[in-house]
């Protein structure tokens, strides 16, 4: 059966060149980078080179990058680490309701510790209004965390504008750039954020590796205590191959960025237009214009539930994702859709299609061929279609 992977926002296949760069660190280059002998020095040298490369690609100083176990740890460190370190100033944090659980659950943890969290509203396309942020900032606010690109819809927030407001009020600003770093241009010299999280496996790097940019001078407390690794920010013997792989993935992604963005735009239009030709009552969740990263198409098919679509597509070898999950007694649709004010019955029919570097024209054509009959069949079965 033809395999069609269109779930690149969940994860991506490892790029062969990334694997190649990583392999020596699973074989001959096994030294502990903290060791002073040559076994260790070879490895610490490679990490230093990689860190320099990453700093060049992101436009920051090499001392401002710290490797982590992924996007989740980076998000936790940013939100909890700054909230803890600045609690004498206040115990108020601001975020949005469409964040990934890595940020939302970190905020819920803070709430349990006696912190107060404000969740800024988003509009029907998923945008945070900078004026709302301005209004929400208080004397006791310490950190604002707003994601750059949303994993479910691809909506791109105006991070420089939001970060500027936080800066003017003397509040730290963090952005979860897990879905954007390596996919769209980011220059930390101009971006205006104090902290940024990134993850390797969303850009054809290895799973379980990420990094965080922390601007020099940011008051932050580490979460993993132990040795003085990562300049004391994150204890634990380094995931060396992961770090090397992450930076290689970032390098390849930056090289391919322009052509990939062009390709995503083409695929998005082709699929959306093609589906509209064949089907009625379909809704695009998120903005249609350039304020959406076009690798993501989140579509609701009225009258049907997304799991039924996913199962049918899976039988045809096509892998996509759904926002809602019918799991417990009450079926909760995606928190992102709900925050955007999407009607629950529309949110339940939402399917996320996400492209990556290895997505081809044939993948799009095959999906365009296979998806409409599935929708038609399920609609025949539905009492509400």
């Amino acid at each position, binding site marked *: 059966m033809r395999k069609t992977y269109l779930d690149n926002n969940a994860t991506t296949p490892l790029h062969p060149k990334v694997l190649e760069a990583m392999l020596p660190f699973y074989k001959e280059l096994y030294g502990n980078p903290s060791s002073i002998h040559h076994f260790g020095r070879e490895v610490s040298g490679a990490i230093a080179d990689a860190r320099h490369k990453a700093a060049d690609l992101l436009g920051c100083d090499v001392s401002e990058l710290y490797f982590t176990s992924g996007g989740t740890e980076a998000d936790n460190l940013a939100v909890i680490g700054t909230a803890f370190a600045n609690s004498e100033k206040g115990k108020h944090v601001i975020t949005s309701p469409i964040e990934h659980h890595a940020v939302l659950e970190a905020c819920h943890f803070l709430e349990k510790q006696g912190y107060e969290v404000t969740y800024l509203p988003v509009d029907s396309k998923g945008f945070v209004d900078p004026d709302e942020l301005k209004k929400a900032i208080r004397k006791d606010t310490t950190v604002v965390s707003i994601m750059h690109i949303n994993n479910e819809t691809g909506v791109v927030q105006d991070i420089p504008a939001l970060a500027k407001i936080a800066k003017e009020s003397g509040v730290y600003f963090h952005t979860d750039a897990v879905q954007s770093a390596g996919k769209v241009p980011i220059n930390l010299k101009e971006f205006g954020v104090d902290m940024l999280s990134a993850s390797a496996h969303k850009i054809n790097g290895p799973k379980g590796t990420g990094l965080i940019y922390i601007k020099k001078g940011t008051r932050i407390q580490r979460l993993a205590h132990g040795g003085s690794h990562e300049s004391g920010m994150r204890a634990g013997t380094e995931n060396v191959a992961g770090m090397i792989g992450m930076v290689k993935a970032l390098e390849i992604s930056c090289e391919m960025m322009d052509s990939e963005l062009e390709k995503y735009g083409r695929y998005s239009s082709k699929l959306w237009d093609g589906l509209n030709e064949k089907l009625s009552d379909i809704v695009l969740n998120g903005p249609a214009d350039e304020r959406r990263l076009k690798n993501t198409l989140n579509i609701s098919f009225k009258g049907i*539930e997304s799991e*039924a679509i996913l*199962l049918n597509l*899976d039988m045809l070898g096509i892998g996509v994702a759904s926002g809602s999950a*019918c799991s*417990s007694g009450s079926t909760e649709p995606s928190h992102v859709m709900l925050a955007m004010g999407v009607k629950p019955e529309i949110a339940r029919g939402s399917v996320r299609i996400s492209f990556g570097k290895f997505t081809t024209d044939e993948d799009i054509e095959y999906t365009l061929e296979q998806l409409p009959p599935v929708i038609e069949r399920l609609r*025949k*079965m*539905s009492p509400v279609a």
Partner: protein
Amino acid sequence: MGALGPYNETVMEHFSNPRNMGELDGANAVGDVGNPACGDMMRLYLKIEDGKIADAKFKTFGCGAAIASSSMLTEIIKGMTIEEAKKVTNEQVNEQLGGLPPVKIHCSLMAEEALKAAFENYEKEAAKKAS
């Protein structure tokens, strides 16, 4: 999750080839339960003749488990007397499907509720005619 995803072969078979799917011409009992905002909705059509379920069909908005449960329910009740069918429970639907994942068992409950609703409507109609 195995090679077949969250469901066993029987569930997937009923999901892929649902039995008795569609509207039923001449139905004299219809049961509606759930609503799309809550995630699933089922409409059960029955044709009751001489105290027996002569035919049953369904339409369902819902996940794989909801669709498979609907299909299985119609298979179980076709040909039963009303008395027999009234005793059918969601456990029976679940059992005949070879067991749904625990988090999905509530989906088979919808099938039982649709059946109850259909009988209630049938009896209401009958009472109206009698009065």
